[in-house]
């Protein structure tokens, strides 16, 4: 070990001080990966505030509406962002959503399982699928893009084929009656803070139905999950050893391995994370709709990746933030709902989504160059 000695105290070797530029706090802030998404979200709110401020979009009901859409996307976008920071992609998220829905509905409706058991079954399947994705990518060294693209087709096909085989159709309804008194389902199906909305309604501060109950009944479960996951993942990334391993695995796989980071295990756990997030998404939607649909979640993986990219994740891994992906999801959710309140044809939403992503990628690329620029 080193002890301090006189000979190593001279600090003149590298830093000729006159060559150091002062770095302002603003510039440090600009280097944060989530900044672009935060700015974008603020712009989107200002835009709709001006264009649709008096249309009911920003009533309690309207806000919960676009928050619900944002939150659903956000749940999978956060997991996708974590995986991207770890240096991999998961294109099977959307198919996993459909598969998880069926894993809940078929046992519950056709095999007579209690709902809680079906939900646990779906999550177990998610862990298996995620583990399989992860181990394939880690062991073969193939790009995760290809491996999970294959899984996209396999899972969607299996979902469709198995459902038709067992039920003779592609949709499984009838779940709503099972939710009541189930020991687990409420976690995915209960609105929270109802008393706040009842109180607001009684004070005539929010819109009421004709029977006097408030139009907005409570915070939907998706929003609670979304906020909880955003906090948990940000804490993991910033404050835990595992978080550092995620950055390291995505930044330089070999380097990380050489200093003892269990890169394989980290990546597998992140693949399990995306599959589990897809299952949370599916459970909330299936219980909300009361039915499972084999086509549910189609193309959701691309939206999740788009939100993660807008949130500052680099496609090459090793850089990004979970909170950024959350803002990315809020941007997309808000625009997709907000567009109904404007005169703009909703067909334009996809154009916006694509343009947003393009701008984000160019911006991220610029930031990356800034961060890695040598003096």
């Amino acid at each position, binding site marked *: *070990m*080193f*002890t*301090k*000695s006189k*000979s*190593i*105290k*001279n*600090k*003149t*070797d*590298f*830093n000729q001080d006159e060559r*150091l530029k002062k*770095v302002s706090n603003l510039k*440090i802030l600009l*280097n944060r990966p989530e900044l672009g998404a935060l700015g974008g979200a603020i712009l989107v709110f200002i835009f709709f505030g001006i264009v649709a401020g008096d249309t009911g979009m920003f009533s309690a009901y309207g806000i919960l509406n676009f928050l619900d859409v944002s939150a659903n996307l956000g749940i999978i976008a956060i997991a996708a962002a974590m995986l991207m920071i770890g240096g991999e992609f998961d294109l099977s998220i959307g198919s996993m959503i459909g598969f998880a829905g069926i894993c809940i509905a078929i046992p519950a409706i056709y095999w007579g399982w209690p709902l809680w058991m079906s939900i646990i079954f779906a999550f177990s399947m998610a862990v298996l699928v995620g583990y399989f994705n992860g181990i394939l990518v880690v062991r073969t060294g193939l790009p995760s893009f290809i491996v999970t693209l294959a899984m996209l087709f396999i899972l969607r096909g299996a979902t469709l084929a198995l459902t038709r085989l067992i039920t003779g159709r592609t949709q499984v309804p009838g779940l709503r009656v099972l939710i009541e008194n189930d020991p687990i389902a409420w976690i995915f199906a209960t609105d929270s803070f109802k008393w706040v909305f009842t109180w607001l309604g009684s004070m005539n501060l929010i819109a009421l139905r004709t029977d006097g109950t408030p139009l907005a009944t409570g915070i939907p479960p998706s929003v609670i999950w979304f906020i909880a996951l955003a906090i948990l993942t940000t804490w993991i990334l*910033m*404050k*835990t*050893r595992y*978080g*550092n*391993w995620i*950055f*390291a695995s995505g*930044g*330089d796989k*070999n*380097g*990380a391995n*050489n*200093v*003892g*980071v269990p890169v394989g295990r980290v990546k597998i756990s992140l693949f399990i994370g995306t599959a589990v997030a897809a299952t949370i998404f599916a459970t909330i939607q299936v219980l909300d709709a009361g039915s499972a649909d084999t086509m549910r979640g189609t193309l959701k993986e691309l939206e999740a990746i788009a939100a993660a990219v807008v949130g500052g994740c*680099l496609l090459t891994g*090793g*850089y990004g933030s979970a909170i950024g992906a959350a803002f990315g999801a809020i941007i997309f959710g808000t625009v997709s709902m907000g567009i109904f309140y404007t005169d703009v044809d909703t067909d334009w939403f996809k154009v916006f989504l694509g343009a947003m992503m393009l701008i984000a990628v160019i911006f991220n690329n610029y930031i*990356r160059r800034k*961060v*890695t*620029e*040598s*003096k």
Partner: protein
Amino acid sequence: MSDYLVQFNNISKFFGKVIALKDVTMKLRKGEIMCLLGDNGAGKSTLIKTLAGVHKPDEGEIIFEGEKIIFDSPKDALDIGIATVYQDLALVPLMSVTRNFFMGREPLKGPPFLKTFDVEKANKIAAERMGQIGIDVRDPSQAVGTMSGGERQCLAISRAIYFGAKVLVLDEPTSALGVHQASVVLKYIVKAASQGLAVILITHNVHHAYPVGNSFTVLNRGKSLGTYEKKDISREKLLSMMAGGEELDKLEVELKEMNRISS
């Protein structure tokens, strides 16, 4: 006799029919810098990987602090204190100085099962360590990508020392650096040795090796051409050994011949 910290005796390594290394012997005392010189293809990489525990030697033995040891993995080598700093440095440019310094070995705090990465402590140690080698890290959360090549090299070496290296194996630490930066890195290597580390410096640059080395081993086509104390060999002799002296001599004769003809 056994005042050697580490001895590599008659190390050989074969890949199928190819003899990558044959009977290479190196001995190091504490505080010594041994320079391993060799041209491209001399077997330097194979030797490094054998020292680091990536390859198992097919013949020969490694004796560390008087005991014979066998490495099953790079981790074994690291655990007893043989740390290898590869050319890629195992640094992630997008990550901060602190996060790189403690990558894979993060200090933790807090109750069991809820242990968190002690960022404050890590920042403090990283800044302190970098300060000791003359790199003033204003902000330990700045990305490593913003540092110069020499600074990165020193960071990687400093990290290895902090985590308890006794033998430091450095793979071409100066090859990608300019003159000034290279001299700073070499100075740091000498300092590290003066603190009691044994250093194996692998390089093809005799001009970098000669001023800092205590002894020199020249590797040519997988074989050691011998180990020389500094007093026993000149820089020019080393140079010509490395390049396969005869070939250079021949070239010189040929060039002279050409000059004679053209003039």
